[in-house]
């Protein structure tokens, strides 16, 4: 008698565990699907920032509501830096006197290309993809790109 009872009991445990796992996976799928749909409304959505001719060489312009800084190098190369410090996500500010970005939270600073000048920030500032169409500078606000350092290939030219 016992082995059969044991077997049926084990079967019950297995069935209930499987159904609980199913419920859990449905709940997780439900939650993450809602999150994805909400955030992916803007798949590769390029937004016009400015006219290329209006942005001077060697300048830094804040686009606060888009959470980015548009940087134009002396040679005309363009770069869109994320506003968020790579340490804990505070909003950095452009310090004109020192030609650097400062983070108010833990005193990290970055140069014009987003490279770390002083820690605790662990990596170079994130960037947004830029493109220039018909003299207009457009940024893809749907995703930020992480990078370990700055190189010239990240610059976009008009």
């Amino acid at each position: 008698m016992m082995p059969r009872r044991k077997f049926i009991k084990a079967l019950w445990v297995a069935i209930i565990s499987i159904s609980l796992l199913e419920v859990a996976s449905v709940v997780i799928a439900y939650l993450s699907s809602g999150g994805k749909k909400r955030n992916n409304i803007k798949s590769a959505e390029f937004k016009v920032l400015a006219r290329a001719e209006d942005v001077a060489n060697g300048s830094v312009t804040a686009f606060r509501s888009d959470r980015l800084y548009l940087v134009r190098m002396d040679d005309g190369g363009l770069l869109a830096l994320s506003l968020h410090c790579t340490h804990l996500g505070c909003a950095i500010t452009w310090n004109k006197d020192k030609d650097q970005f400062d983070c108010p939270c833990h005193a990290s600073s970055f140069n014009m290309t987003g490279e770390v000048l002083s820690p605790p920030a662990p990596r170079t500032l994130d960037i947004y993809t830029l493109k220039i169409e018909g003299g207009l500078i457009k940024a893809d606000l749907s995703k930020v790109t992480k990078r370990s350092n700055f190189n010239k290939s990240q610059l976009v030219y008009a």
Partner: protein
Amino acid sequence: MKSRKSFFHTLVLLIHPEKIRSSSIVFKRTFGLGGMALLLFILQGITGILLRFVYEPTPAGAYNSIQFIREDVLFGDLIRNIHHWSGMLIVVVVFLHLLRVFYTQAYYPPRRFNWIIGILLLILVILLNFTGYLLPWDQLSYWAVTVSTNMLEYVPFIGEWLKQAIRGGEEVSGPTLLIFYNLHTGVLPLLLMALLVYHFWKVRKAGGVIIPRDGDNTFVPAIPGLLEREVAVGLTLIAFILFLSIFVGAPLLDRADPSFSPNPVKAPWYFSGIQELLLHFHPTVAVFVIPCMAGIWLFSFAYLSPGSRQPGVWFYTQKGKKLVMVAAISSFVITSAGILLGEYLINLQAWLPGLPELISNGLIPLVLWGGFLFMFGLVIKKRFRATRTEMQLWIFTFLIMAYLVLMFTGIFFRGPAMALVLNY
């Protein structure tokens, strides 16, 4: 003895036994901390439900609805202040409750599993406070939650996913507010209630609160002996909270501005010890390795080394009391010195430029500190001829004091750009 009981009498006996050992109702046995936590939770439930009638969980509406509560709703400001102060106090009370349970060695069987439940309850209380922290949607709450959730990014492998899951997106925004609101007013209180019932049931199963073997163990009726003490503690607590709420308002800064961080930005006060660690260690070590080590120890020490015990005796023995004092004072001095050294003298990252920061500013200081504390513990153990249980007291006290020093430094001695200042 078969008299009919009043309705109120029966109500009290739903949680309390009819008769109770007389030494268990001495105020200094528990300081009524568990009961205070329950009362605060009930207060939070009542004021929270009242606030829910007015609060609007959207980035556009949240801040306005708080202002509306404060300025236009009758007693709105008072209700919000009570909710704020009880929410802060419940964290303090639950923490003190943990200290009481630890120092009277109430974490051994039959109470051992209830210690685990207690830690889970502490975590829930902190999460409840944290999810509530965001809801005013002002500069204080927005940026505190931004830096706190950003700390998750440094959890190895799943950090980025975890951060985005909790925020419901890249940055703290509408979805985050909805998630936090739902957790704060639905999921977490329900979980807490379920665990709380279990917690109380386990206390009853263990025969009530822990008492010393040589105490007065005669039985006395719970009513009025226990009841009058509970009412006294409860009414005093309510009076204290009302006093606080009438004279000190809950903070509300400017509306949240995601493109502008105030200076400095601080995590909620109970997390500011972790934020302080972040200033000294590589983020992965500060937000993951050290908290995990401390957490695993808290969960498991009662299982790993069942030492001898003196149930219900504060600090175990005279020597135990002495060790707790030594641990508290030495931890205070060593942690303060560590903070000052880290701020002004030591810069491992600059001294070891060839190494990745995770090693130079993470692994190396962690091993050095760990080794130092281990040696220090050995010296103490030898010098005091301490037993296992006494060493547990020493380790626990040392860790708690270290966290308190880090936390208070973060709260009171960090100014703009997190520089060390005397008076923030």
